[in-house]
């Protein structure tokens, strides 16, 4: 099994000191290790944003794509070779802003991708504009008089859109985060992990202490939380404010998109021989 240390690359991140991304990166390396993934069979796919830099710091294969398109690239990789574990790393702007449509459709498709959304409720890399998860009233460079839209609730949306694994974690609850992430990596299907990640430079509202005061673990609730009931999960997902639930809201077992493709039964596309495809039978259909 690869250790988190072995997953380190020669490069060091240049995130701001105290940025939640450091914790996410550590958690990710631990979870990859815990889940027993092999580096050459693992691909990290990212978009553009502070969060998008992850692949450079984990010694697995990586594809650092363009802003908002993590999921289609990840889907392409997964369809090409479903022996690979494909992990998507996106910012909240990337995932729920510009990339919102792929988010919706990849969920209902149930492609096996673990989707880590670094949700700092701000556009970090572009120096601090409103993100889809910024709370109403939040003043940023693009909304100096305060945002006037309701924020996206990624957990509700994922449940409504048919995701088969829906979780929220807080990077400040490190062990819980790691454990949920490991669970997500083991999920056979699309797994959303919305990660509450303080941006110390541009988001002075949703800080570590702010979250610390509010987050609670679903399983710590009286009666606990069995993540098997979509409706209950949806109701729970509405909670955001004085108390913020973290943990696995919902999980179900369902065939993945890949499972339903007989073309992939024998071997991944990437392993199929293309050296001499015989089309002579087909051609006769044109007579």
């Amino acid at each position, binding site marked *: 099994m690869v250790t988190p240390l072995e997953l380190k690359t020669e490069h060091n991140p240049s995130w701001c000191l105290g940025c939640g991304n450091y914790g996410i990166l550590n958690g990710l390396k631990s979870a990859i290790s815990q889940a027993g993934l092999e580096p*050459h069979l693992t691909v990290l796919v990212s978009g553009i944003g502070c969060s998008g830099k992850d692949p450079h710091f984990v010694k697995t294969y990586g594809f*650092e794509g363009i802003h908002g398109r993590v999921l*289609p690239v990840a889907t392409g990789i997964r369809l*090409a070779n479903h022996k690979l574990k494909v992990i998507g790393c996106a910012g909240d702007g990337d995932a729920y802003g510009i990339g919102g449509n792929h988010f919706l459709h990849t969920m209902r498709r149930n492609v096996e991708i673990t989707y880590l959304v670094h949700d700092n409720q701000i556009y970090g890399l572009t120096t601090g504009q409103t993100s889809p998860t910024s709370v109403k009233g939040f003043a940023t460079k693009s909304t100096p008089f305060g945002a006037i839209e309701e924020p996206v609730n990624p957990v509700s949306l994922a449940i409504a859109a048919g995701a088969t694994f829906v979780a929220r974690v807080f990077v400040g609850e490190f062990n819980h985060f790691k454990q949920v992430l490991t669970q997500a990596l083991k999920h056979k299907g699309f797994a959303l992990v919305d990660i509450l990640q303080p941006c110390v430079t541009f988001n002075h509202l949703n800080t570590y202490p702010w979250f610390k005061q509010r987050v609670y673990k679903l399983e710590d609730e009286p009666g606990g939380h069995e993540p098997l009931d979509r409706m209950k999960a949806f109701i729970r997902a509405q909670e955001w404010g004085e108390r913020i639930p973290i943990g696995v809201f919902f999980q179900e077992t369902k065939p993945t998109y890949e499972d339903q493709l007989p073309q992939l039964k024998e071997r991944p596309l990437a392993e199929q021989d293309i050296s*001499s495809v015989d089309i002579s039978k087909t051609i006769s259909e044109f007579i």
Partner: protein
Amino acid sequence: MKQNEVAFKIAGEAGQGLNVSTLNLARTFTRKGFHAFLLTDNPNSIKLEPTWCSLRVSTSLIASQTERIDVLVALKTDAVLRYQAEVSDDGFIIYDEDAVNPEGEKQLAGIKYLPVPLSRIANTMKAPDLIRNTIALGGFLALIDYHPAGMKEIIAEVFARKGEAIVNQNISALEAGFNFVQNNYGSFIRKRLPEENGPARLFLTGNDALSLGAIKAGCKLLAAYPMTPASPILHYIASKEREYQIVVKHTEDEIAAMNMVIGANFAGVRAMTCTSGGGFSLMVEALGMAAQSETPVVVVVGQRPGPSTGQPTHTGQGELQFLISASQGEFPRIIIAPGDATETFRETFNAFNLAEKFQVPVLILTDKYLAESYTDWSELKDDDLKIDRGKLLTEAQLSAEQNYLRYQITSDGISPRSIPSQQNGIHVATSYEHDESGWYQEDPAGVKKMYDKRFAKMPFILKEMKEPKLYGPDEAQITLLAWGSTKGPVLEALERLANEGIAANLVHLTYLWPLPVEALSGLIKNAQKTIMIEGNYTGQLAQVIRQETGLKIDHILTKYNGQPFYPAEICAKVKEVL
């Protein structure tokens, strides 16, 4: 009217199944070894709007439609009015006397107007309105004195899954039409074609040829969003996805399609997307990502007239310059515009090789005319097509690497490539400017090196760009230039000009970008007079040639009304400028 050749057109409205019927008619002949060309005209509506389908059949090779119709079948009055001018002086118009009334209208001299009670026959048979086509085709076969047996066979095959009753109904309809013309218009009947012309020929569209080329090339993933005229590629390959173990994904949009294809190629699988200009617009951003990350990718762009939605079901060649410079920044790309179905098949195959060999985007530029017109092939020739995956490393080669660099700077600009799952090839592919390892590069000198590395591929790519092909006599009074699908009508025009004693030849470009400057300049400089034939407003290839060579093409014939070129227009222009 020519001997050994017939030009047929059926005109009515969308939803009347004109294309399907005409295709059945065409196969009647191609199975007997005839050459044929089928051109469709689809309005931007599923039903009701006026439309037509034309078919040309000949004992010898033909490369395009003609402007002259021998027999027009008219299912609506306005079909007569719209198209009677195209009917040759000694031609015929078969019309549904129950639905069409050309009587009150100005009729053209010479043409025989042959009423047939299509609707009444259909009614008597209690058959749906659509069966009028079959009755009319029966009449057409009678008129040219061609045995209906072949057509019956096809009807039996095509309608087999609808049950025997429907098969029999259609066969009766065909016979009814045949008999009606035989009985009523015997004096006009004249044998136009021999009963046979050789072994059965294949009959297929540019889209079919393209799909076959992609399958042959080992394309394993097609991700696309439907868009005319590229959708049939999606449909066809989807229908074969299990047979050839291909994953076909109708995505949420074109952005997803392009990004998926890039992901798949990155993971070592040949993958393609197909669309039209509007969908390609949405792929422009990811095209640059393919280039920067040096991920091979094949994109099919089927042109139709713009701007914007424009005329979605018609044809044009308005996207050449768009493709040459699409996406921010600069990078090598390859653009191939096949001229006919054969080229489409072969160059699509080749496109996948080139994409992997040079790790650049390859764009296949077709148009509605090429994509949806049918032409005939004698047989499939594919023995010589060999897969070349370029510098794709094997596990063995990789295990010898000390420190694998995905973007290694090499003399030809191409870096050896590893794919996920290979033990020793771990790397990050990236859309950022980067160093040899894929890590961010902001040092000006390093940036320049990497930019130069990518462009270092250009001379090597250029070597593989097929030179423009010269058709017709080496020495000519005038040299026509054309690209892509315009080839067919121009070839036909050359033949006609030759018959009139005008020596014209054609320089046809299939490989458009990077422009094969040397060969092309030679051909242009050798020409006495040049004329460019292009399906756009600004004369895009002429502009590109001038940009790249400084040479100005003497004359230009453009067309941008949504229709393909007809040989006669080309002949006329040639005569005008000579």
